[in-house]
């Protein structure tokens, strides 16, 4: 019993027991753990996976196999010999009582009797036993899912399982095989793809997965060989081909993956937060490449085929400045809207190609596809990363879990550790700080917020207004120069003024905004980042809105080929933005690095500001989207820009920057960026283009839509053409009844609204359910804590009571029987408690959380008790006491006692020293029992009383057989005790022949006593 000395507390008892079992099995571990690995369903030894309560339960199933096998194998396997008692003891000895009748296992019996002194042996054994850890390879190999099912299957068994506890090793092996078989069956039933996925998802080691897969495949091929036919063969081949194809596609995609090495390098040094900027950049690049391919393929190539050379008026030549301004030479090429013809191409053997329709549908298709891709990635990103994230869980786990395993740079790792430490400390101090803030401080903070927000919004509006006035100045100037029709370089350069100012605003004002964080004090650093993002977005979008307004209102009415003018303006903006981003990384990163390292050391090396840089990208992409109608080849510029930007930023990052101090929330930031890219950016660009297409009159002189009222009337004309052709009637019908009918849109929006409402309700329902389930888990935890507490208080009060009783009766009663009485009372108490706990734990828990180890220990104790009682009753009713029956019943009693003890007093080590010290070289079985009694006694009485009680027990030894009979009396008495407390006295006195028959509730006790008298009268 000294083995409990190393038990840490309630929770670990069962676990340590399973340790001992592990030791027992160690010689054969290889084979067992093999099957254990390969079979998560059928793992009967889930000793290691955190579900402590279940562990305790499964122990119940485990033990008999372990113990019995240890006996069975005792002769064959040398190492077992030394451990067999260990397993006996460590297992609460439950299996002993659960064994089949002795006639079936003579060797057991013999063994048992031969080991009369086993307690001494193994007590010392445990003292010397080195602590043995579970092999890590076997720990935690069982997934939650599988354990869940396991638990469910175990719970209903509960007490009924007692009868089955006499499982042999074979049984257990069978069960394991069974469960493994089930898993394999399950897998075989799946389709090939699902199966591969399912096997891959098993949290097991490679070997085990291989084993399972081998079995599945073997079974599969076996089945197949029986029912082979052409169709299945065909389908297998086809599916195999598809899978191969899919794998090859992934491979090709990976080979083509851009910048893989660079990405890894950046990630290794700066972590996932910074990497998300580069990923975003790459993603946008893909958008632009796609847009370029579409535009180039469907608009530009046909145009170039039919008109290989642009109509460039005389006197216009390429002067170099066009690269910046996009005007002049470029304005007559396919770069802009104006460069495309409106004719239906197709004379001279070429197939017909309607440029109007091609232009319209290409742009429309691109916009729709872009929108779909954005919505898809935004939604999936929201689902994965935002909705699930709990803002209430802002603390330590968030930080601990965000450790970047991909960071490989030694210096970066050190820096990260530093940052993490600082953040952990901050998170600790934050909790204290929140409560301390007085009202005046808070008011001051709100004032500051109000001021900064007013200031920032005012600045954004002011910038918008100034841009608008600049635009109007620009218009008047351009009109003047257009009148003169002289394209001097200076005038061309003057067009750069507007984009220069806009880009300057975009560069300077955000820097100014970032100064705000010096005066603002957000409780949460994340709020600060959000505030900066919102302000920047407001600024950028207000400027773009003003520009769009200007283009559509003024430019569209002033110039003859206004689409090309807008295209040029956008081109200039894109180019200027590019230059300023480069400047920005020079000033923002390089210069501040120089300043930080050389001049003002306190500033330090700048951090890479992911938010600001991503917002720059979003702004640039918005320009490209707006420009897609006016300048179909603008994506080319964008591609080049992003490509250069990638390398530029990478160099700037590695040379000038340090990783951001605040790690974490990178994933959420990414979601926010995608959302921003979608909402103000894409939606804004789309509405701008849609407005242009639907309402603005296209220019008369140039472009594919010249001469039409609106761009959209190209479709009208097409439909009118189709109307005459019978084959296309359905298109016309769709056009008239779907596209142009208000009722259709009305219905569609109505349906969508209804669906949104329904889904919203479902979401709210789920949220409620989550709250309830959470509450339930918390309640379960509270239940457990409550039960533990009750157990302890009961124990304490019982000790007090016992003391009182003892003082009263010390003189009158036989002391040894008092000791036993205590044991019995204790047992009874336990029965009550266990009754409580069994009713609460017998309910299967839907939450999937583990039952505590303590409660499982209690369960064990209870089960053992019950079983012991059953046996006692059985042996009691068999009137004569056969000599060979006593071991079984008394050992059952011992088990009960031990279990009792364990459940009651885990922490107090001194309790368990008792049996070690009190070895009595007497007849084995009663002495064992007595030792247990002593242990109980000690546990309950004070140290000084201990000596007092030991003597009487010694005196019992000569009449060993009597004491075993006495146990029976005790059993009987216990049942009788339900009625009244005075009955305590009766069984105690039942040792004296004249004290029989104290009450009607004591009939059983009397019967027992009489039997004792009959049988042992001779000896008396």
């Amino acid at each position, binding site marked *: 019993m000294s083995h409990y000395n190393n038990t840490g507390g309630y*929770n*670990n008892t069962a*676990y340590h027991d399973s340790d001992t079992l592990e030791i027992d099995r160690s010689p054969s571990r290889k084979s067992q753990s093999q099957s254990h690995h390969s079979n998560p369903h059928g793992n009967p030894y889930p*000793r*290691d*996976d*955190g*579900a*402590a309560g279940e562990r305790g339960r499964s122990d119940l199933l485990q033990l008999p196999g372990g113990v019995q096998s240890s006996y069975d194998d005792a002769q064959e396997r040398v190492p077992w010999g030394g451990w067999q008692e260990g397993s006996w003891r460590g297992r609460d000895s439950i299996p002993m009582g659960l064994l089949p009748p002795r006639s079936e296992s003579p060797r057991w019996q013999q063994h048992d009797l031969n080991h009369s002194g086993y307690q001494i042996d193994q007590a010392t054994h445990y003292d010397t036993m080195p602590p043995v850890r*579970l*092999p*890590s*390879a076997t*720990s*935690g190999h069982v997934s*939650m899912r599988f354990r869940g099912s396991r638990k469910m299957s175990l719970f209903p068994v509960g007490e009924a399982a007692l009868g089955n506890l006499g499982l042999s090793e074979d049984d257990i092996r069978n069960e394991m095989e069974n469960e493994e078989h089930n898993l394999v069956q399950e897998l075989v039933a799946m389709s090939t793809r699902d199966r*591969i996925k399912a096997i*891959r998802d098993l949290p097991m*080691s*490679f*070997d085990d997965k*291989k084993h399972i897969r081998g079995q599945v495949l073997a079974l599969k091929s076996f089945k197949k060989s029986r029912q082979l036919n052409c169709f299945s063969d065909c389908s297998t081949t086809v599916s195999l081909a598809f899978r191969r194809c899919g*794998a090859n596609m992934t*491979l090709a995609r*990976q080979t083509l993956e851009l910048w893989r090495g660079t990405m890894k390098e950046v990630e290794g040094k700066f*972590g*996932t937060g910074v990497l998300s900027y580069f990923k975003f950049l790459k993603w946008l690049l893909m958008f632009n490449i796609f847009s370029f391919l579409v535009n180039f393929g469907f608009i530009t190539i046909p145009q170039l085929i039919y008109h290989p050379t642009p109509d460039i008026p005389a006197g216009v030549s390429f002067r170099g400045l066009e690269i910046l301004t996009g005007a002049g030479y470029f304005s007559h090429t396919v770069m802009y809207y104006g460069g495309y013809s409106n004719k239906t191409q197709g004379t001279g053997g070429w197939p017909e190609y309607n440029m109007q329709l091609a232009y319209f549908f290409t742009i429309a298709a691109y916009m729709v596809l872009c929108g779909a891709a954005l919505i898809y990635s935004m939604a999936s990103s929201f689902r994965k990363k935002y909705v*699930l*994230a*709990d803002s209430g*869980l802002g603390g*330590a*786990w*968030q930080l*601990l*879990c*965000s*450790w*970047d*395993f*991909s*960071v*490989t740079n030694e210096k970066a790792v*050190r820096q990260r*550790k530093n940052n*993490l*430490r600082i953040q*952990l*400390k901050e998170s600790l101090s934050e909790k204290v700080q929140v409560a301390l803030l007085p009202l005046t401080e808070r008011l001051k903070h709100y004032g500051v917020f109000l001021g900064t927000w007013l200031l920032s919004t005012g600045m954004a509006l002011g910038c918008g207004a100034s841009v608008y006035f600049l635009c109007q100045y620009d218009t008047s100037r351009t009109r003047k120069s257009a009148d003169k029709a002289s394209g001097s370089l200076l005038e061309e350069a003057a067009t750069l003024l507007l984009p220069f100012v806009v880009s300057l605003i975009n560069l300077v004002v955000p820097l100014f905004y970032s100064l705000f964080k010096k005066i603002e004090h957000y409780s949460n650093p994340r709020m600060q980042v959000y505030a900066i993002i919102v302000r920047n977005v407001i600024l950028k979008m207000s400027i773009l809105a003003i520009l769009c307004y200007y283009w559509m209102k003024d430019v569209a009415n002033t110039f003859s080929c206004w689409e090309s003018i807008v295209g040029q303006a956008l081109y200039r903006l894109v180019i200027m933005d590019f230059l300023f981003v480069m400047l920005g990384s020079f000033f923002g990163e390089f210069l501040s690095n120089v300043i930080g390292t050389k001049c003002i050391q306190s500033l330090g090396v700048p951090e890479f500001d992911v938010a600001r840089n991503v917002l720059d990208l979003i702004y640039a992409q918005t320009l490209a989207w707006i420009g897609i109608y006016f300048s179909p080849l603008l994506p080319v510029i964008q591609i080049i820009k992003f490509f250069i930007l990638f390398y530029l930023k990478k160099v700037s990052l590695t040379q000038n920057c340090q990783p951001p101090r605040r790690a*974490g929330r*990178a*994933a*959420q930031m990414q979601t926010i960026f995608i959302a921003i890219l979608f909402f103000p950016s894409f939606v804004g660009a789309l509405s701008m283009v849609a407005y242009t297409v639907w309402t603005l009159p296209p220019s008369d002189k140039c472009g594919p839509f010249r001469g039409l009222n609106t761009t959209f009337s190209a479709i009208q004309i097409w439909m009118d053409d189709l109307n005459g052709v019978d084959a296309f009637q359905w298109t016309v019908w769709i056009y008239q009844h779907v596209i142009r009918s208000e009722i259709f849109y009305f219905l569609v929006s109505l349906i969508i609204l209804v669906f949104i409402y329904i889904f919203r309700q479902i979401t709210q329902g789920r949220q409620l359910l989550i709250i309830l389930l959470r509450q339930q888990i*918390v309640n379960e*935890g*509270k239940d457990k804590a409550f039960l533990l507490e009750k157990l302890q208080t009961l124990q304490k009060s019982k000790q007090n009571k016992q003391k009182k009783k003892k003082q009263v009766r010390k003189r009158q009663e036989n002391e040894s029987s008092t000791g036993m009485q205590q044991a019995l009372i204790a047992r009874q108490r336990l029965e009550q408690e266990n009754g409580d706990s069994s009713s609460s734990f017998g309910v299967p828990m839907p939450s*999937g*959380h*583990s039952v*505590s180890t303590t409660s499982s220990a209690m369960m064990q104790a209870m089960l053992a008790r019950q079983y012991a009682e059953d046996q006692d009753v059985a042996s009691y009713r068999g009137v004569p006491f056969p000599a060979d029956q006593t071991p079984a019943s008394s050992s059952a009693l011992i088990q009960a006692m031990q279990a009792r003890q364990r459940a009651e007093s885990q922490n107090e080590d001194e309790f368990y020293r008792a049996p070690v010290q009190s070895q009595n070289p007497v007849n084995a079985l009663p002495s064992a029992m007595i030792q247990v009694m002593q242990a109980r006694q000690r546990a309950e009485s004070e140290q000084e009383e201990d000596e007092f009680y030991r003597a009487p027990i010694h005196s019992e030894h000569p009449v060993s057989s009597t004491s075993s009979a006495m146990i029976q009396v005790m059993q009987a008495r216990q049942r009788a005790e339900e009625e009244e407390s005075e009955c305590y006295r009766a069984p105690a006195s039942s040792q004296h022949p004249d004290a029989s028959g104290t009450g009607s509730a004591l009939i059983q006790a009397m019967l027992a006593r009489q039997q004792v008298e009959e049988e042992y009268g001779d000896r008396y």
Partner: protein
Amino acid sequence: MGTTASQLGKDLLSEYQELTFLTKQEILLAHKRFSELLSKEDRNLTSVPMEKVLSLPELKSNPFRKRICHVFSTSDMKDGSLTFEDFLDLLSAFSDSATLEIKSHYAFRIFDFDDDGTLDGGDLEKLVNCLTGETEDTRLTPEEMRQLISNILEESDIDKDGTVNLSEFQHVISRSPDFVSSFKIVL
């Protein structure tokens, strides 16, 4: 690349592909890197000792490197040595395409320093020490550590048994979206 492909064999390769989250290219790369570890001495050895695995630049500065080796090692000696298949297992669990469940399962085992199936106070303390640095001056003070651990338990110990078990851990993980992207090692 060609030579490694021939070394691995087509059947084996497809099996690896099927049982891990890795693509063919990644497996080949892994095999190349793995056989480089074995290069000079005995090539006939099946497993690489832990010291050599830890010399990989991807693992060299990882604070959990030893735990990672121990968790993924199937060696009977408990010395953290990895066979090629263990190595693939490791890369698979740390790959981009591994599921959250797999990742959190292995993260739990890596964080469970004493291998007892739950994250108790001791494990958490070791975890925090691992992440903040082991030396005396970088470590948190005992008071801070106590506070931190009680915060952690308060956050995640739903059934209030004083430890964080696997399901509680997975619950926490599912709510910290950065985990999937940061629990990653790419060769």
